């Protein structure tokens, strides 16, 4: 076992982790630990854009952005945080540009922006161009730019180190335990401040836009250490994943004019969201697609619809709407090169010639580790801060996304709250001392890893994971029912039992034992699946991404509140609730 000491340790090197690292490393001794090489983080997969009311093409205001965000969240977002978020978004995006990020440009040389779901001109209700982008690889550019700047600033990276535990001493965080993947060696990182930025957990579901490595590790680690998880029932299903593969087709396609069509060739979104149609927010569109499919209007009666970006189709609708915009093949090629590439490679379809088969795909966790606007982890209904512990990015829940995140707001979240987290750690480390390491700080988790390494039951990790994904997709997906969710909770508990008693791991070695680490990751997924199902079962209303057939209406009287799920000492889950911060925007019905 090796022990390292840093002022600040950041777990995760996606957009959020790197942004925090940039800020922290300027003033305090900082380490970034990541189970992937930083540039492999899933931020690199983000396509469409980063939201900020720059107004480079047309009138726009951060207040509009804030209202759209709150409305998109189905009024569950904390409005003080949203205001700050939308204000800081502007300077954060400019800061990225100053770091060299190669945005697409307008003819005047400014950052180019495109329309995106749920982002509107508040006066006309029409879509507004707010998504700052670099073709359809915005996340890639952000990740690369931030990593480059970290290299420039000599940030200490521990690449391919898998964090498996948070060390607590007397209720205070003292560091983390990580496995060096290349050698199997266990390392202890002793730190004053620890920030988690481990990203999402889409792998809980079958069809997902998320990477294989997005297994919610940070959330599970903290949850096991008694920290609650907030609003986990809200998980976003992106309307347009490639049929059966789940690979994301960015909302930018619809931003550029693409439309969704059912088997009859109808632009069905006209019925569900008469004013902004295909650019309604994601929960609305995903539900619409499922309803179409349920009514038998999926393409050839199958479980998908078409997304059409062929210039002739798009121009037809532009003309119908009285817009004078027109697009052509070259334009599509230049704005959506990667999307075209994905379709050509994986399904042999050229989107400029043929429409793309799409279905909703598990995409983004609105909930997560509860934090305040400084990235500090808060652990109860009164927002009590746990000093020294921070979270940012998708794994965190500030909450600015509430029950449904608007497209482009996650990348903004990484930058705004990653930066705030980094700054807060600096302030904290300047005045705080190290919490001493407890005796044998890695003992517990080492024992668990040993158990997994030698697990010789009958259930393969992959099979157990597949069963979990099936249960969650069937019962805790886009549409939910009391009965199904109860069943899910029960079945997940059974799977957890088998995980504890009947698991099988082949690889008993130390070097790059991904067999073992996948088993560990499955443990995290199961914990998260359970929290999600339990939180969802309890919430008896429909709001944002949580949509119940048995309670189809939003219920602000009883449910305008955040869920906090705690692990009970005996292993069960306890739910508490905390109020939503409402400032200017009173909840009202959501129509697009």
């Amino acid at each position, binding site marked *: 076992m090796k022990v390292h000491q840093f002022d600040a340790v950041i777990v995760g090197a996606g957009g959020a982790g790197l942004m925090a690292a940039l800020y922290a490393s300027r003033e305090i001794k900082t380490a970034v630990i990541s189970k*992937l*090489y930083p*540039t*492999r*983080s*899933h931020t*690199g*997969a983000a396509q469409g854009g980063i939201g900020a009311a720059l107004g480079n093409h047309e009138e726009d205001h951060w207040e509009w952005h804030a209202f759209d965000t709150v409305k998109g969240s189905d009024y569950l977002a904390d409005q003080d945080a949203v205001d700050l978020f939308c204000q800081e978004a502007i300077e954060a995006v*400019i800061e990225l*540009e*100053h*770091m*060299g990020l*190669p*945005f*697409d*440009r*307008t*003819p*005047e*040389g*400014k*950052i180019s922006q495109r329309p995106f779901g749920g982002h509107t001109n508040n006066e006309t209700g029409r879509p507004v161009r707010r998504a700052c982008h*670099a073709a359809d*690889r915005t996340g*890639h*550019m952000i990740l*690369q*730019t931030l990593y*480059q*700047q970290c*290299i*420039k600033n000599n940030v200490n990276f521990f690449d391919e180190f898998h964090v498996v535990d948070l060390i607590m001493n007397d209720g205070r965080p003292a560091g983390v335990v990580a496995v060096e993947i*290349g050698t199997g060696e266990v390392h202890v990182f002793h730190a004053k401040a620890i920030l988690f930025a481990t990203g999402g957990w889409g792998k809980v579901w079958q069809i997902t836009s998320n*990477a*294989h*490595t997005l297994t919610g590790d940070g959330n599970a680690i903290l949850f096991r250490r008694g920290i609650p998880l907030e609003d986990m029932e809200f998980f976003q299903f992106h309307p347009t994943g490639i049929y059966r*593969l789940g*690979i994301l087709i960015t909302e930018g396609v619809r931003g550029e004019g693409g439309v969704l069509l059912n088997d009859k060739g109808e632009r069905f979104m006209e019925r569900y969201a008469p004013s902004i149609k295909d650019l309604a927010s994601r929960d609305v569109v995903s539900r619409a697609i499922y309803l179409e499919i349920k009514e038998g209007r999926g393409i050839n009666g199958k479980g998908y619809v078409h997304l059409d970006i062929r210039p002739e189709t798009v121009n037809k609708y532009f003309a119908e709407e009285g817009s004078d915009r027109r697009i052509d093949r070259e334009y599509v090629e230049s704005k959506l090169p*990667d999307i075209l*590439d*994905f379709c050509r*490679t*994986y*399904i*042999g379809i050229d989107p400029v010639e043929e429409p793309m088969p799409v279905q909703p795909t598990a995409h983004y966790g609105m909930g997560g580790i509860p934090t305040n606007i400084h990235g500090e982890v808060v652990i109860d209904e009164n927002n009590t801060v746990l000093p020294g512990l921070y979270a940012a990015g998708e794994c965190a829940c500030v909450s600015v996304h509430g029950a449904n995140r608007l497209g482009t707001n996650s990348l903004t979240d990484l930058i705004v709250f990653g930066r705030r987290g980094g700054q807060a750690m600096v302030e904290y480390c300047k005045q705080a001392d190290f919490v001493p390491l407890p005796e044998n700080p890695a003992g517990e988790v080492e024992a668990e890893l040993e158990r997994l390494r030698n697990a010789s039951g009958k259930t*393969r*990790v*992959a*099979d157990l994971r597949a069963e979990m994904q099936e249960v969650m997709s069937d019962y805790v997906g886009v549409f939910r029912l009391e009965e199904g969710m109860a069943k899910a909770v029960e079945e997940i508990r059974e799977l957890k039992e088998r995980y504890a008693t009947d698991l099988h*791991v*082949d*690889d008993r*070695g*130390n*070097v*790059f*034992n*991904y*067999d073992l680490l996948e088993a560990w990751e499955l443990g995290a997924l199961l914990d998260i699946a359970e929290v999600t199902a339990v939180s969802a079962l309890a919430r008896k209303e429909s709001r944002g991404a949580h949509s119940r057939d048995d309670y189809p209406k939003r219920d602000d009287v009883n449910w305008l509140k955040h869920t906090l799920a705690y692990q009970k000492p005996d292993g069960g889950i306890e739910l508490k609730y905390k109020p939503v911060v409402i400032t200017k925007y009173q909840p009202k019905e959501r129509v697009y």
Partner: protein
Amino acid sequence: MEITLRIRRYNPEVDEKPYWAEYTLENVERTDRVLDLLHRVKWEIDGTLSFRRSCAHGVCGSDAMRINGMNLLACKALVKDFVKGAKGRIQVEPILGLPVIKDLIVDMDTFFEHYRTVMPYFINDEEPPERERLQSPEERAIFDESTKCILCAACTTSCPSFWANETYLGPAAIVQAHRFIFDSRDQAASERLAILSEENGVWRCRTIYNCTMACPREIPITQLIAEVKKEIGRR
């Protein structure tokens, strides 16, 4: 269809030398990725098989390997690209020129060291303006191709010049340098060009084109290298 996967395997804790192992998989779809097949081997047959992967759709750069003799991303290589009939073989081995650690996993240290050598970060020490620095779409287009790189190393490890001599910075590092050299906002082009004018820099490129053929992001690497060579010549 039925596919026999022939994999170059090596576990430093058990094996003295690398060896070939074969796995036969049934019910393979023509559109399955080679990554899917590797997963099936790992998940259904032998969990000790080790390889890196994450995104599974060609954007993270984890899983460059040599498939049927050519560097590709396992997640962007489809079975139908290699096998036409109902039965066939696909051969997978680690990329060449970096030390193999286990099975398909190589030690990427040299690769990232070369990457860091070329100062792969934006440098402009002037006080930035209030808003964005302006850049015309034309200026932006000059370095567009080099911004696409995902650091997968498929190019560098396909280059005979790199096989011959690992001190060669390699195409990936040059692409990264190109990204900044030709960015109108950046101020350190000369420093990077000076680094690349050294013996282990661009001159080791012998215009072989393996890199360009291998790049999963379809970056015209050889063109970019040549542009850098010309730029050095101009100074």
